[in-house]
C-alpha cells in the first residue's frame, strides 16, 4: 500500500465514508454484464451449493444442489448452470470484425496480408469477491476433463454433455482474470478497492457488504459502524442480517437453517424410494410432493442468503458506472476481445481442454504476458488519471511543473543543425532526476523525449533538453514545444511498454525447461473418472 492510499484511508477514517482513489474508471464495464454469485458447500473443495446469476438485476435466476454430497445432483446442477451460462458466453461469438494483419510465409519469407476475425464484443462476468473467482476456477478444473455420455468411452460417471464445455470456459475466464487490467471476469471487491479507499484495512475490504457500507452508511452511522453492522449484526435466531458474500456460507446458517432443510430433503427422498420399493402409489405421490416442497424450501432459504449479495454487486456496478471511463479502456478491452476470440477458435478447432499444469513454454508465455500487461496497466493508469500519476510523482518517478523558460539551442555535430531546445520548469516535486537521465513528456502533441541537464532543488527548477518530437525541420514544429506558463508533466519511465525478448519457438525449448514438446513423456491423461464425492 502506498502512502497516498494510506492517506486516503486516513481521510476515510475521519470522514466516515469511502474516499476516492481514482478520478476515472480503470476497468471496462460491459453494457450487459453477467452477475454471478456462487455458494459452496462447506468442507468440500469446489463442491457447488448454489448460484444466483443473470444479466437483469430484477430477474436473478437461482440454481442449487439439494444434497451437495450427491454426485448425480451435482451434475444436474452443473448441466443447469451450463444451459444458463453458455448461451450468454456464446452469444458474443457470432458478431465479428475483420482485422488486417501480415504474416510471414515460413518458406519464402515474404510478408502476406491476412485477415483475422475479432469478436466485436466479449462477455463479462462479475462475481462478488476474489474467493468467487477461485471457486469458479475449481469448478472449471473439476469439470473440464469429465467424459460425457457422448464420448466413446464414457467411463463410470459420465457427465451431461455441455458440462465439460462449461468447465473449459470457466477455466479460460479465471485464467484471464490473472492478467492485470483484464476485464472478462472481475471480482466486485477488487473493483471497488481500486477506485475507493475505506477507513479499514485491506483485509476487511474483502467483505463486500462491509466495503459497500463505507459508500452509503445509513444516516447517523459512520462507515466503520455500518461496516461492523454488515459484518456481525444478527437477528433473534442468531442469523446474520447481512449474509457473507460467499462462496462460503456462515457456519450458523449451515447449522440452523441449511442442515435441517437438507435433512428434510433427504428424508423426503428416502420416503420416495421406500414407497417405490413398496409399490405404494399413493405414498409415492405424497413423497413426490414432499420432495418438491423440500426443494422449494431450500430455494427459499438459499435465495434469502444470496439476494443481499446480488443487490450489493449491482449497487457496486452503479457506483462504478458513475465514474467516467478512462482513456485506455477501449485498448485494453480489445485485448480481452482477442482473448475471447482465441478461446472461441480453440474450441471450434476441437483442441483438448487446458491441461492440469501448463508446460514450460505456455507457463513462460503466460508469465511474460502478465508482466508486460502489468507494466502497460501501470503506465496507462498514470496517463489516464492524475491520482495514479501522483503515485509516481510521490515515488520520484515523475514530476509536474510550470514552464518558466524555453531557450532555443541546436545540435551542430551533424551535417545540418538539429533543434535541441532547453526547457526549464518550476516544480514542487522531488524527482530522482540524475543528470543525463531520460524523461518523457506526458500528454504532449506527440511522443517527446528529453534529457535532464540541470536540477536546482533549492530553486525547485529542472532543466531538460528536448530530444525528439519536434518534426524534421531545422526549427521545431510550431506547437510541438511547451510554452512558458504551460503546465507539463514528465515521467522518468517510458510511456509505452517495451517488448520483452521473444521466447524461443516450442521446438527450440531448452532442456532446462523440459525440451521440445514430444521429447518428454506425456503426462497421463487426467482421469476422466476422477473420484468426486
Amino acid at each position, binding site marked *: *500500500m502506498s502512502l497516498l492510499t494510506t492517506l486516503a484511508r486516513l481521510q476515510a477514517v475521519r*470522514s466516515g465514508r469511502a474516499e476516492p482513489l481514482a478520478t476515472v474508471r480503470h476497468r471496462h464495464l460491459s453494457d450487459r454484464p453477467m452477475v454471478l454469485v456462487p455458494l459452496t458447500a462447506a468442507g468440500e473443495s469446489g463442491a457447488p451449493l448454489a448460484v444466483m446469476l443473470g444479466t437483469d438485476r430484477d430477474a436473478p435466476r437461482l440454481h442449487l444442489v439439494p444434497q451437495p454430497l450427491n454426485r448425480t445432483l451435482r451434475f444436474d446442477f452443473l448441466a443447469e448452470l451450463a444451459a444458463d451460462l453458455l448461451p450468454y458466453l456464446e452469444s458474443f461469438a457470432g458478431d465479428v470484425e475483420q482485422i488486417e494483419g501480415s504474416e510471414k510465409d515460413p518458406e519464402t519469407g515474404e510478408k502476406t496480408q491476412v485477415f483475422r476475425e475479432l469478436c466485436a464484443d466479449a462477455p463479462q462476468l462479475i462475481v462478488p469477491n476474489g474467493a468467487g473467482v477461485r471457486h469458479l476456477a475449481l469448478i472449471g478444473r473439476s469439470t473440464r476433463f469429465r467424459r460425457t455420455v457422448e464420448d466413446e468411452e464414457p467411463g463410470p460417471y459420465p457427465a451431461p454433455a455441455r458440462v465439460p464445455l462449461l468447465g473449459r470456459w470457466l477455466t479460460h475466464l479465471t485464467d484471464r482474470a490473472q492478467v492485470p487490467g483484464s476485464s472478462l471476469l472481475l471480482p466486485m471487491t477488487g473493483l471497488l478497492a481500486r477506485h475507493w479507499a475505506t477507513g479499514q484495512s485491506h483485509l476487511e475490504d474483502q467483505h463486500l457488504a462491509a466495503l459497500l457500507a463505507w459508500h452509503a452508511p445509513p444516516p447517523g452511522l459512520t462507515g466503520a459502524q455500518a461496516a461492523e453492522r454488515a459484518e456481525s449484526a444478527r437477528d433473534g435466531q442468531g442469523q446474520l442480517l447481512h449474509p457473507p458474500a460467499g462462496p462460503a456460507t456462515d457456519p450458523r446458517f449451515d447449522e440452523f437453517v441449511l442442515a435441517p432443510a437438507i435433512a428434510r430433503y433427504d428424508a423426503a427422498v428416502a420416503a420416495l424410494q421406500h414407497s417405490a420399493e413398496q409399490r405404494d402409489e399413493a405414498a409415492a405421490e405424497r413423497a413426490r410432493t414432499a420432495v418438491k416442497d423440500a426443494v422449494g424450501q431450500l430455494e427459499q432459504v438459499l435465495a434469502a442468503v444470496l439476494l443481499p449479495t446480488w443487490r450489493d454487486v449491482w449497487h457496486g456496478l452503479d457506483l462504478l458506472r458513475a465514474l467516467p471511463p478512462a482513456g485506455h479502456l477501449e485498448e485494453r478491452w480489445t485485448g480481452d476481445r482477442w482473448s475471447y476470440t482465441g478461446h472461441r477458435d480453440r474450441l471450434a478447432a476441437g483442441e483438448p481442454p487446458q491441461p492440469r*499444469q501448463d508446460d514450460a513454454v505456455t507457463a513462460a508465455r503466460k508469465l511474460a504476458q502478465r508482466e508486460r500487461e502489468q507494466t502497460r496497466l501501470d503506465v496507462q493508469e498514470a496517463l489516464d488519471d492524475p491520482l495514479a500519476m501522483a503515485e509516481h510523482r510521490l515515488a520520484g518517478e515523475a514530476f509536474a511543473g510550470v514552464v518558466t523558460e524555453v531557450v532555443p539551442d541546436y545540435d551542430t555535430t551533424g551535417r545540418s543543425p538539429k533543434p535541441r531546445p532547453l526547457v526549464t520548469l518550476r516544480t*514542487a516535486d522531488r524527482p530522482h532526476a540524475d543528470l543525463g537521465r531520460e524523461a518523457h513528456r506526458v500528454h504532449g502533441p506527440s511522443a517527446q523525449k528529453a534529457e535532464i541537464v540541470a536540477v536546482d532543488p533549492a530553486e525547485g527548477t529542472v532543466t531538460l533538453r528536448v530530444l525528439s518530437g519536434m518534426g524534421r525541420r531545422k526549427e521545431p514544429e510550431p506547437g510541438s514545444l511547451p510554452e512558458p506558463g504551460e503546465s507539463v508533466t514528465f515521467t522518468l519511465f517510458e510511456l509505452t511498454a517495451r517488448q520483452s525478448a521473444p521466447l524461443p519457438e516450442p521446438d527450440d525449448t531448452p532442456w532446462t525447461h523440459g525440451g521440445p514438446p514430444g521429447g518428454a513423456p506425456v503426462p497421463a491423461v487426467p482421469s476422466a473418472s476422477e473420484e468426486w464425492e
Partner: protein
Amino acid sequence: MNVSTNVPLGGPAEPLAQRLAELRGPAPQRSLNARSLAALAANPGCHRRAVLDAAGVDKTALAARLGRPAPFGQSPFAIARGVIFESRLKADDYAALLEPLRAHLGLPAGDGAPLEVPDLLHRSGPAVRADRTAEALARAAAEPEAWTLLDHPMLRLEVAGSAAYLEPDALVVHGGRCTVVEIKSFPVLDGSADPAKVGAAARQAAVYVLALQQHAAAAAGRPLAADPYTEQRLPGSPRTSVLLVCPKDFGNRPTAVAVDVRRELATTRRQLSRMTDIGRLLAELPAGTDFDLAADQDGVPARTSEQLTAAVETMPAAYSPDCLSTCELGFHCRARARCDDRVEQLGRGVRGELGSIRTVSAALAAATGADGTDDAAERLAYAAALRAEALGVAVGAGVGAGASAEAGA
C-alpha cells in the same frame, strides 16, 4: 483436533497457578492448544492475549460478554467431512497413513511389521495422558524395528512459565524416532494446496515438534540444541519434517506430503522465547483484577460487562487487522483501536509507514503541513498536496502551489 479440557496446574509453579486461577474465577480452564499457540506466536507482543491464554479464560465467552462476540464457528458439514476423512485414514490398520510414510522414510512398502497402537488413556486428565504418552513414546523408541502409532497423544510444553497441553493428530514412531502427522481436510489439488492453509498447518505442527524436542532433550538429560535448524538425534526425538495428510483432488482419498517445518520451528522458538514471562505481566495487573465469567444461581453474573471491560483494558493489546481472523477478541480490540484513533486499525504496514505518528488525528494534522517536524510528516504533507491537486479540491491548487487543504474533508 484440539480439545479443550480442564487442566489442573500443579508442580512448582504453585503461586503462579494460584494467581492464574484467581484471574479465571470458578469457570473451567481452557487449555492452550497448538492453534492458539501458533496465533500467539504470530503476535508475541500482545500481553492481553498472553495473560488470558495463560489463565485459561474462555475468550469466546469473554468476547460475548464484552459485547462483540467472536465470529468463528465451524459448519456441521465441514465437521462431518473431517470425521469421514479421518475414519478413512484409520481403515485397514492405518494403511492410508503408513504407505506414504514408509515411502517418505525410504522404507520398502509392506515390510510386514505389524502396527502397534498403544492405548493412551483418552478419558483421563491431560497430565496423566501426557505421562502415558511419554511412556509409550519411550517404549516405542526403544524398539527400532517396530511401527508404533500414537493416536491423539498428549504433549506438554512450557510457555512463558505456564504449562500448555497439546494434542497432535498422531505420531508415528519407527527406527527410534518419531514423525508428527497432521491431518487436514483441505485438498491437495494437482500436487499443490492453498499456501495459506499449508503455512498454518506447518506453524501448528512446529509447535508439536518443539514440544517433542524439549521432551526428548529433557529425557536424555541434554540441553535443547541452541540452533533450531540442528536436528538432535536423541531417542524418541522428532523428525523436523512432518507428514501432512490431506484429501487428494476432489475425492476423499488421502495423500500425504512431507513438509519441512524447520523454518516455522525457528520462528516459533524465537517468538515463544520473546513472550514476556507471565509472572511479570501478572505483577503489572492492578490488585483485584479478574475475569470471572461465572454467574450465580439466579443467573446474575459475578462481574458486570463494565467490570470485565475495565479488567481487559488493564492489559495492553497489540491489535492488527489479522487478529480478526485469529483471535476471539479481535472485534473488541478493533473497536478499542478505533476509539483510541490509532493507526493500527488500517493494518500493520501502515504503522511502519507513518513512523512515529500513532494516531489518525496526528497523521491528518501532519498531512496539512501543520506539524512538519519529521520525515514521515513531511512525506505525508507532500502526499496530501499531490492528492489535493489530483482531485482538484484545494483552493489555488496548482503546480508547485504547495496545496495544503485536506482533500475530501
